């Protein structure tokens, strides 16, 4: 197994007026390729801050971050944008879909910012493929406001997948979803992790959601306080099959 993410003494300090907020106080962590890492911790413990940094959306105040053995802290803004575009797929709690834009157009969006542009037809086909992967092939032309929360989150997942990222970052992806839909979304994540070998970093404050991962890292006050492998991993597929009514989402 090779190391995908490696952070050393990661510190992030926000200065708000006179006050310094220490969001991260020296985080050391390595994530191996193919892992399904769940990050938990109480509110304000620095989980989102951590995800933003490993997602190249933000820079640490100090410390080092190697992504695929490349020193990200030295990259320019444009290089970071390119990394976000090619290596990382984001799934946010609030879905963050463009309203009044069809599902398929939302999914295609990252392709517009690639270094080598694709033809319209090829883009469309690729977007259709990933939509089918998340089970939304028949809703391609629907607008976000015509989709349920679970369906919107799947569109967001499809968008995160379209560039074949090696890492999928999800910040509270089930925060707005009911239990059953949450299990379905976890099912997609587990499928992608298992079948395509995508490294998943899932942020959640719900302990039972964290148990869909292979490893749980706990944050508190900007530090890693626990790091353990999951012994009895939950499997979304089995749980869904056991549900009384088959899903029709």
């Amino acid at each position, binding site marked *: 197994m090779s190391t995908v993410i490696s952070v050393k003494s990661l510190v992030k300090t926000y200065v708000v007026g006179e006050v310094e907020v220490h969001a991260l106080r020296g985080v050391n962590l390595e994530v191996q390729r193919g892992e399904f890492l769940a990050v938990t911790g109480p509110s304000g413990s620095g989980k989102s801050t951590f995800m933003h940094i490993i997602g190249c*959306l933000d820079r640490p105040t100090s410390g080092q971050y190697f992504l695929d053995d490349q020193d990200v802290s030295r990259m320019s803004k444009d290089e970071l944008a390119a990394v976000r575009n090619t290596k990382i797929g984001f799934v946010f709690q609030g879905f963050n879909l463009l309203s*009044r834009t069809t599902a398929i157009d939302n999914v295609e969006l990252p392709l517009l910012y690639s270094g080598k542009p694709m033809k319209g037809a090829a883009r469309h086909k690729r977007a259709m493929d990933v939509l089918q992967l998340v089970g939304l092939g028949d809703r391609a032309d629907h607008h976000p406001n015509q989709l349920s929360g679970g369906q919107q989150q799947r569109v967001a997942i499809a968008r995160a997948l379209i560039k074949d990222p090696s890492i999928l970052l999800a910040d509270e992806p089930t925060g707005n979803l009911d239990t059953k839909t949450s299990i379905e979304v976890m099912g997609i994540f587990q499928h992608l992790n298992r079948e395509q070998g995508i490294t998943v970093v899932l942020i959640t404050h719900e302990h039972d959601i964290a148990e869909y991962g292979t490893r749980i890292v706990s944050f508190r006050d900007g530090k890693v306080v626990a790091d353990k492998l999951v012994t009895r991993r939950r499997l979304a597929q089995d749980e869904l099959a056991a549900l009384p009514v088959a899903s029709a989402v």
Partner: protein
Amino acid sequence: MSFVMIFRIAFKALSRNKLRTALTMLGMIIGVGAVITMVALGNGAQDAIDSQIQSAGTNMIQVSAGNFAAQGVRQGQGAASTLVPEDAAAIAEVEGVQYVAPASNTRGQMIAGNLNWNAQVQGTDVDFPLIRAWPTQMGAFFTPQDVATAAKVVVLGATVRDQLFGPDVDPIGQVMRIGSHPFTVVGVMAVKGQSSVGQDQDDTVFVPYSTVMKKMRNITFVQQITVSAASATDTSGTADRIAAMLRVRHKIQTGDPDDFMVRTMDEIAAVRKETTQTMTALLSGIAGVSLLVGGIGIMNIMLVSVTERTREIGLRMAIGARGRDVLLQFLVEAVVLSLVGGIVGIALGYGLSQGLTAWRQWPTSISADAVVVAFGFAAATGVFFGFYPARKAAALDPIEALRFE
């Protein structure tokens, strides 16, 4: 990102808020339309002056009373009373002068039978048809005898004849009234049509200048003396000799200013061109201000748009848009606003110019140059006023933008 794609995104974003887009464009449309119309009017006036000089003949000289340039207080031409009929007689003797016609004008209500009409009354001399190369179509122009006796005879312009007697009617010998004076119709002028400034030249009547002076206005001076030089090449020389002769006649001391003005057609044209140029520049300037206001409107709406779409910007950045992609996206949106507005504005300006020509007979001329410049200006406005909002968008921090409520 390809340019086609950027434009597609811009059009989509703009079509999302159609009313707002239309109103923002309206600012540009009015601005560009106004500039095009004003420039068209200015160019039209210039062209008109050119063709007027062409038709009047370059050997025309005008002598008018007064000299507003020297008097400080600007009086209307002809308001001064220093030119008298004897000056005209003396001018006729000057070397190089071919025709001379003093002018003394008035307006009057004209009545023939039960019809009446109000038109200009031009008091002139027998040389007038020769100077203007303007023949009669019926009867004849009045004679030197009529001028000498201040006879109440009148030659009608075609429009006045149409109004008072009906089209194609022969009114020769009929008696009509101008104000309270009975005049006998002796001729009808050929149809001249509109002047270069859109005036109906046939909406006038001609009587001996002496009649206007003595019988109608009771004055002893003339407003103007129109002179035609025998040779086009010697026009300014002739004008100089007329001026020198008049100074002697009017007993003007050396060093004192003239109490008259002698101007050749070229000089008149130059002055009028300068005036229209100033007018055009002024009007275009005002129109330009509305273009500026249109540009500010674009900037305003783009700033609103950037704020509204902060989350969208954050999202685009999160999935790989670089600052430059975002900048371009908003810049292109602003330019599309201004260019579409500009194109519609050019069409509007064209329509307005044509309309003014058709409705008010104002001469207009739209040059390809003006259209290209207006188009370029519209694009520049979009870039200039769109740049700040676009840069603001591009400089957003992705995380803050994503968090924006």
